[in-house]
């Protein structure tokens, strides 16, 4: 397997260089703490508002940095590619956005992320900052959670950050936000599929080998192999492979749903819309009422081809918060 071409300068500077680019593009609304590699709302901390902090390894853009701004995150901590941020970074973000009302950490359920955010929360508590953490674990591909590190946090993270961010903007307190976040987590499920692996810049070759005629079902977002390999299939068949496990895991009928069809980074929007059409048909046939949708690249895995489906059973409160104004580099509406 040969080396993969990348638009980078030096593999070890990828995150630092990208942060300079984000600053060049969005200095009007974002502030970058280059020492800690944290992306902040330019106007943080906001008096009286609970700070919403997320973060994780880089390589999932626009998650998380692209969701920093009014109505979503106050700060995003950028780890190295596919590597959790360290507690110093999370601490820097937490203290920078705390205005006395406390800080909520939204953490994807990956071993490293959970441990690093946990150590940061212990450090922040020692400095008198009130921190709550909610762990997101929506990936139905992980079936035997008792014998694993548990379900992974994947696509639902995008919907979570939007809904909880809107509630924080409205002035909901820390306990209320944590409770809302747990409700969202309990009501959302995701499933992903890869057509190719992806290439971590400092490794230079694909993380796993996938044949020309193979699909990897049940992938996470770090190029880790999934649970099962199947022969390549049509979009309609792949849509069923995503929809069935999601619906088997939770009853989504009888309430409105927010549906996201997300690209993993290297799949064209043409194919993502085609897939959304297939998925929406299957969901409607199963009695799911799609109230809102989001189609595009929102939580990616570098240059992986493939997509993921997220379905959130939403109550009126969640729908209202979904529709609330948001002004971030990657999501912007209602302004």
């Amino acid at each position: 397997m040969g080396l993969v071409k990348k638009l980078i300068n030096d593999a070890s500077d990828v995150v630092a260089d990208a942060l300079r680019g984000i600053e060049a593009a969005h200095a009007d609304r974002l502030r970058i703490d280059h020492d800690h590699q944290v992306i902040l709302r330019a106007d943080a901390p906001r008096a009286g508002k609970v700070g919403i902090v997320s973060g994780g390894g880089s390589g999932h853009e626009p998650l998380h940095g692209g969701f920093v701004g009014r109505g979503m995150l106050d700060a995003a901590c950028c780890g190295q590619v596919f590597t959790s941020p360290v507690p110093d970074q999370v601490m820097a973000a937490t203290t920078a956005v705390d205005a006395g009302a406390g800080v909520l950490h939204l953490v994807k359920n990956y071993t490293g992320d959970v441990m690093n955010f946990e150590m940061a929360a212990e450090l922040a508590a020692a400095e008198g900052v009130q921190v709550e953490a909610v762990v997101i674990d929506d990936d139905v591909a992980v079936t035997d959670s008792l014998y694993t590190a548990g379900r992974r946090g994947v696509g639902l993270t995008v919907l979570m950050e939007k809904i909880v961010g809107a509630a924080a903007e409205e002035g909901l307190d820390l306990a209320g936000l944590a409770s809302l976040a747990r409700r969202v987590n309990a009501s959302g499920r995701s499933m992903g599929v890869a057509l190719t692996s992806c290439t971590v810049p400092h490794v230079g070759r694909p993380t796993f080998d996938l044949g020309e005629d193979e699909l990897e079902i049940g992938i996470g977002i770090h190029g880790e192999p999934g649970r099962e390999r199947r022969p390549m299939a049509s979009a309609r068949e792949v849509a069923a492979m995503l929809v069935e496990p999601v619906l088997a895991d939770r009853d989504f009928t009888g309430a409105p749903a927010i549906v996201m069809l997300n690209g993993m980074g290297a799949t064209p929007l043409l194919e993502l819309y085609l897939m959304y059409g297939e998925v929406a048909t299957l969901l409607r046939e199963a009695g799911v009422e799609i109230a809102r949708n989001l189609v595009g690249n929102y939580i990616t895995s570098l240059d992986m081809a493939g997509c993921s489906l997220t379905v959130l059973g939403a109550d009126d409160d969640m729908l209202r918060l979904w529709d609330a104004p948001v002004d971030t580099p990657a999501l912007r509406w209602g302004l």
Partner: protein
Amino acid sequence: MTTVDLAQTQAWLADFAAAIHENAALLTDLDRQIGDADHGSNMDRGLTAVAALNADDFADTAAYLKKVGMTLVSTVGGASGPLYGTFFLRFAGALPAAADAAGLGAALRAGVEGVAARGRAEEGDKTMLDALAPALRAYDEAVGEGVRPALEAAAAAAATGRDATVPLVARKGRASYLGERSAGHQDPGATSATLLLESAARNLG
């Protein structure tokens, strides 16, 4: 009686840093098979920072090892940062001044228990604990023979534990998502933890 001093401790960490650097490609390749291909580069980055610490800046061995732990937490990232960081922080907290074999054993026990608590893992989960836990048992059995022989026994037990991870199905960490497919691969964390104990056996006592 042989005791562990600051100079020896710094030599241990320098030797561990060199071993990690030498094996970085191997560790990353093992991680590529069942994880996310970053264990070697992450550990190398962290240990390079540790090797740059000057032992003369610290009042005693425990203060130096505390700084080693904080440095690893701050620079390694992933799960290995908090795990190795917690190992050294707890190790430092339990290390008596001028530690003899029993004192070093107490520190080793605190470190290993810290790793188990932070990772909520137990032996057999296919993690670094599969090297550390048998190493601790072997150390305790040989503790009467002195620091060096006890560490040599610990390093040998770690290597055996590391090799025994190959057939295991992972139950913690990113490899656990592979289910049965994680069997047949050597655990990267158990591999780096074995390097840690082998370095200790070359430098302490």
